[in-house]
């Protein structure tokens, strides 16, 4: 068509483009900015590994949050679910170790308990929202307070140290080596592949692997599965979804349950990385980072539209901003303000034709 979209003002065409691809544009700009600031240091694989590793748990939360937000809901309790599930799971693991269970089974069982505790907390949220008919904001605000307070009560507001000698920490810090031995020169081992600054093999941590697996599965669920289609339909128009014969309550319940499960997983990732659980600090204000990543990724807070890949880039963008600010010697106290501005900007760009 020769005249194309001329009837539309150029401003709104640009806006539509930004709405759709803004997250990629922002990502590209940040890569350029980081490279300029850090030179070659930024582009080295170790730096990326570190960036992903330190944001993997937030990433898992943000992926779950994407599903909840697509269903036109919100979950403010994710940070508290993280600390509660980690506290319960680590306590269980320590009890098992104290009872003489082998370290391997104790770590595995403790991990399972952590994830299950998250799932249970998510089911409570889902039940309150769906069957108690409480607005998601309010129901999960309750969870935000209650779950953390339960975790504090378990450890008297203190720290729960893991009694596992090595295995638990290995789960949190270990990974798959990205280089292999290719021989020895002058008694020194030589590696082929990706190396860290010390010349040793770089590890792709389990946390990163879990983050990406979770993201891939969630993206598939959202765009290719029946559950995902129902989630979008419920988020876009709950009444129309009910008229179309969708079990609206069950769909929404499952979104919160999945969120809880992923919060438990994030709890496991965090507690094993620290090899302990600080009941006052772990997961604190994680809900803000998770929601921010979702919004930056282009998922509509109104529900009915979302994309997990956008959220993944949103997580990376948040991490890069923190990196840049740290490198530029911006006081950590100011970093919150910059993040806040980025979130508001993301929402501003999102607004527009979808209104």
């Amino acid at each position, binding site marked *: *068509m020769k*005249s*194309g*979209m*001329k*009837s*539309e*003002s150029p401003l709104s065409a640009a806006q539509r483009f930004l709405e759709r691809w803004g997250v990629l544009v922002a990502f590209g700009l940040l890569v350029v900015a980081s490279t300029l600031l850090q030179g070659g240091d930024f582009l080295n694989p170790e730096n990326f590994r570190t960036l992903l590793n330190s944001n993997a748990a937030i990433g898992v939360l943000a992926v779950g949050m994407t599903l909840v937000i697509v269903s036109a809901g919100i979950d403010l309790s994710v940070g508290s679910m993280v600390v509660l599930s980690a506290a319960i799971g680590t306590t269980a693991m320590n009890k098992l170790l104290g009872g003489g269970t082998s370290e391997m089974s104790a770590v595995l069982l403790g991990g399972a308990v952590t994830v299950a505790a998250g799932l249970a907390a998510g089911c409570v949220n889902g039940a309150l929202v769906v069957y108690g008919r409480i607005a998601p904001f309010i129901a999960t605000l309750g969870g935000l307070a209650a779950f953390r307070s339960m975790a504090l009560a378990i450890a008297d507001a203190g720290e729960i140290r893991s009694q596992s000698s090595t295995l638990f920490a290995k789960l949190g810090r270990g990974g798959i080596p990205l280089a292999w031995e290719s021989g020895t020169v002058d008694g020194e081992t030589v590696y082929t592949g990706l190396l860290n600054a010390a010349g040793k093999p770089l590890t792709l941590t389990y946390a990163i692997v879990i983050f990406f697996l979770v993201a891939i599965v969630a993206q598939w*669920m959202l765009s*290719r*599965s*029946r*559950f995902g*289609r*129902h989630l*979008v*339909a419920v988020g*876009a*128009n709950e*009444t*129309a*979804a*009910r*008229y*179309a*014969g*969708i*079990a609206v309550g069950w769909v929404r319940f499952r979104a919160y349950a999945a969120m809880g499960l992923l919060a438990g997983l994030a709890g496991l990732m965090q507690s094993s990385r620290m090899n302990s659980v600080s009941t006052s600090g772990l997961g604190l204000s994680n809900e803000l980072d998770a929601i921010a990543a979702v919004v930056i990724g282009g998922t509509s807070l109104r529900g*009915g*539209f979302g994309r997990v890949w956008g959220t993944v880039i949103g997580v990376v963008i948040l991490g890069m901003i923190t990196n840049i600010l740290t490198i530029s010697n911006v006081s950590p106290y100011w970093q919150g303000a910059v993040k806040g501005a980025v979130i508001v900007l993301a929402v501003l760009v999102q607004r527009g034709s*979808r209104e």
Partner: protein
Amino acid sequence: MELPPRSHTDSFAGPPPARGIARVLLAADNVTVDYPGVRALDGVSLQFRAGEIHAVVGENGAGKSTLMKVISGSQWPTQGAVRLEGKPVLFGKPSDALKAGIAMVHQELNLVPTLSVAENVCLGREPAGLLGLRVDRAAQRARAKALLGLLGSELASDQGHGGGVSRIAGELSVAEQQFVEIAKCLASEARVLIFDEPTAVLGEREAQRLLALFRTLRDEGRSVVFISHHLDEVVAVADRVSVLRDGKLVQQFTRGLDEPLRDGAGVVVDEARIASAMVGRELGSIYPAKGAAVADAPVLELVGFGALGRSRGISLAIRPGEIVGIAGLVGSGRTETAEAIVGLRPCVGALRLRGQPAAFANPREALRAGVAYVSEDRKGRGLHVTLPSVANMTLPSLDKHARWGGLALHARGEREVTDRWIRDFAIRCARPDLPISSLSGGNQQKFALARWLEAAPRVLIIDEPTRGVDVGAKGEIYRIIAGLAREGLACIVISSELPELIGLTHRVVVMREGAVAGELGRDALALGDCEERIVRIASGLAEPSATQSGHSQQGAVG
């Protein structure tokens, strides 16, 4: 607003209003609009005059709604201009048009659901009280009441606190919302009033009131523009009829004072003539032949059935291949009863499916048992307007495309099914990946019907099957329904369009105030007075005892 007073009476006395040469208020000048992949308007020039009712008609997708968007400022033309009293104007947004005196009532209702009727009517023009610091709520209510009173709406009457104009917009029926929308438009005191299918959601009586209001507005010297698929209304009130086809203006008809509509050659124009101008060919009867009477056992039976608090005591048996119509005024409990059948509302009484007692907790259970309901509210309930065509089409029948227990959907299968219905129903849909809100209202309606037919129900309840659908598409929908009935589908058609019920269905049940007030059988529907009989029963003028015994009764209403 300086307009000469105009006297328009039914008498022949006085100077004839020079309607044909009245001042042009608003003009579309060679307007072309291109959407991605389609030219919606192609060089259309139209004048809208003071003191004239101007009807714009055309098939779905002919460009009517686009034209209205252009003149009301919510769409920029690709080429051409809009002139207000001769001066070219470029409205950046609808509020600019409103300031210039052009108000539009959209096909989609745009009320703020959490505000009251009065607040919605006065939205943006709240009467100021106390130094302009607060809204004069009493004046606001009074103004809303006066405007709704003009429309004869029951919202104007006070039913104690929480009634009338204090009601919350979100809780109103579609017809009531439409009245509020119109009152909102009147509140703006615009010179040009544009109505996009204003009577589509209204019952017969409400529609007549609205048409009377059109005449009043015209006689006040305003320019009334309306889009309608109801050609009887067009013939009854329009002073000028513009026919659009494929984005072009193909014909205009005009009338002098107290004369019928005529074409350029002076030949009197009727509904059929307008319809054939719209589709570009002669149209036969749009109603297909009715299938033979059926003697099978009923597939669905209602026994003393009703929607809790809205209807009661309805007993009805529907056989395979039968099309049963339900008539009644807006608010007579037709829709609520249908919603109760598929489990959207709590019900009273009993439901039997193929002789077995049945009860559905939700539409999913109903659909599994083969009972589907197509909502009258396309935008809010019948479709997901923000989702693309494919997702809309397969939503009720998604299980067909599920593999691995729903973990994967067969995307190509979904696409093929959607393409097939788009082809079969001749839906104009250039880009199936765009939200379905990009389609015209009539094409959306075909989608809403198709998605349920795809789920292959045994009993289909269709609420207002052709609301906002043009003549050509109406015929197609009727043929589809009749064809499905011949294959054994049992159909309940709820409609405010009596010719549709009479032409399509085997018998018509008339509801009034939540109960069955009468029934007209096949023989009764073949008689010339059946439309009047239905109206009388629906408004409570007939003797129920004389009509209830059914189809063999003739001339029971006199």
